């Protein structure tokens, strides 16, 4: 069944820092339940684009529309703040460096926002924390502090924290890049599980294997533009653009070397 409008609709996204144009008229749509990987060399604008979706890095011009509502509306400051806080509740985000709140326990990390923003009771919050932590396999760490967790565990808590707000869309900004290699898999497994549950996800990643096995579509960005996009089978196996080929050659050869 096709919807009237795309679930996520990015139109003419443009962003410049002074003379430096980091996003050049990007148009991108994502359907509900779709899992999209954004790949590309560093400095290609992929993280900037991801961070524009929840207006963490505001666009210079262009529109981001989520489920029929424009995220980056032009509103007077006060109204805009209200609007964006509301919108962000629907957009979960996971960062490269986890950004867990170190002064709060795992439980408090997960429940702070729902308690504060949805006014749920302490009992409901406890239930929510248990649910979400069981989901990422960390129920037994519920009363630990982040400093007592491994990197992989921290990232799984960060995912649980984002999911506790029951978002419609999840953004992953190189969620496994800061992890030791042996900890990457546990985070990937959680993300795969989300994929199986049909969460809509936009994933900025350097991990081609993960993108190939989990994502419905791969977007290759370079120099602030979308160079090529399509199903992973097409983009990885038969890229049509030279820039894509070159990028993949470097990355896939790195993979081949590290595999040996």
């Amino acid at each position, binding site marked *: 069944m096709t919807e009237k409008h795309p679930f996520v609709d990015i139109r003419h996204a443009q962003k410049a820092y002074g003379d430096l144009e980091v996003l050049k008229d990007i148009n991108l749509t994502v359907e509900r339940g779709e899992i999209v990987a954004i790949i590309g060399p560093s400095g290609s604008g992929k993280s900037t684009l991801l961070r524009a979706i929840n207006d963490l890095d505001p666009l210079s011009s262009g529109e981001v529309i989520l489920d029929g509502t424009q995220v980056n509306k032009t509103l007077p400051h006060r109204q805009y703040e209200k609007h964006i806080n509301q919108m962000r509740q629907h957009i979960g985000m996971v960062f490269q*460096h986890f950004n867990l709140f170190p*002064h709060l326990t795992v439980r408090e990390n997960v429940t702070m*926002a729902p308690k*504060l*923003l949805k006014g749920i009771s302490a009992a409901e919050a406890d239930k929510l924390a248990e649910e979400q932590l069981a989901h990422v396999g960390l129920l037994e760490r519920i009363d630990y502090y982040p*400093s007592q967790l491994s990197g992989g565990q921290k990232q799984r808590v*960060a995912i649980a924290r984002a999911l506790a*707000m029951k978002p419609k869309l999840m953004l992953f900004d190189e969620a496994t890049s800061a992890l030791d290699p042996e900890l990457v898999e546990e985070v990937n497994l959680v993300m795969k599980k989300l994929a199986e549950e049909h969460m809509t996800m936009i994933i900025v990643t350097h991990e081609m294997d993960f993108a190939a096995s989990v994502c419905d579509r791969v977007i290759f960005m370079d120099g602030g533009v979308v160079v090529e996009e399509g199903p992973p089978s097409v983009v990885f196996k038969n890229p049509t653009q030279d820039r894509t080929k070159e990028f993949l050659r470097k990355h896939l050869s790195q993979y081949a070397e590290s595999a040996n």
Partner: protein
Amino acid sequence: MGLDFSVVPSYADALLLGVLWTVAITVTSAILSFFGGILFAVIALYGPWLIRLPFRFFAWLFMGTPLLLQLFLIYFGLVELGIDLPAFVAGVIGLGLHFAVYNSELIQTAILAVDKGQMEAARTLGLSRTQALMRVVIPQAVRDVIPPIGNNMIALLKDSALVSVIGVSELTLSAQLAIGRTYRPFEFYAAAAVLYYIINLGMEAVLRRIERRTQLSR
């Protein structure tokens, strides 16, 4: 004339009462300076300029002039404006505000040093800037400056002796009163010094406990 410490015990009650007043004024001023320091830091960093500018002047006044003068101003000076404060209250306000300004400097630096990802993560969840500051950034900043704030609090304890000049009968004034009767300055000032040192040890123990309790949350 040799030293004779045997006169000290008969003034034990007066000195202990002085200790109690010193502890009372130190603890009250410390609490005021702690919360005042957080408030001032937020004003200095995020307040509208209409508040921020007079605040800067106020901060400069408290950091750039002697505490003794500030106490005189609050206790004797304000009477002219019809504000007649009890000595204890004037002392707490003077000490509390003076150290609040110093604490505020520490907290400001710490707030700016909290990783930017913390604010981003909080905003991403839908928290407003104010909520993110209150729940995420400021608690971490305060946790980070507990040791230097502790040092300020020990300085506050020592400077609490200054309120003796506006007539709060804390430890220093109690010692002076005993000296006035016995003409034994060395004995009583030495006794007072020992008592200050003991209070100091107690404060350090409390501060260490607080530091230990925040260890895990780093």
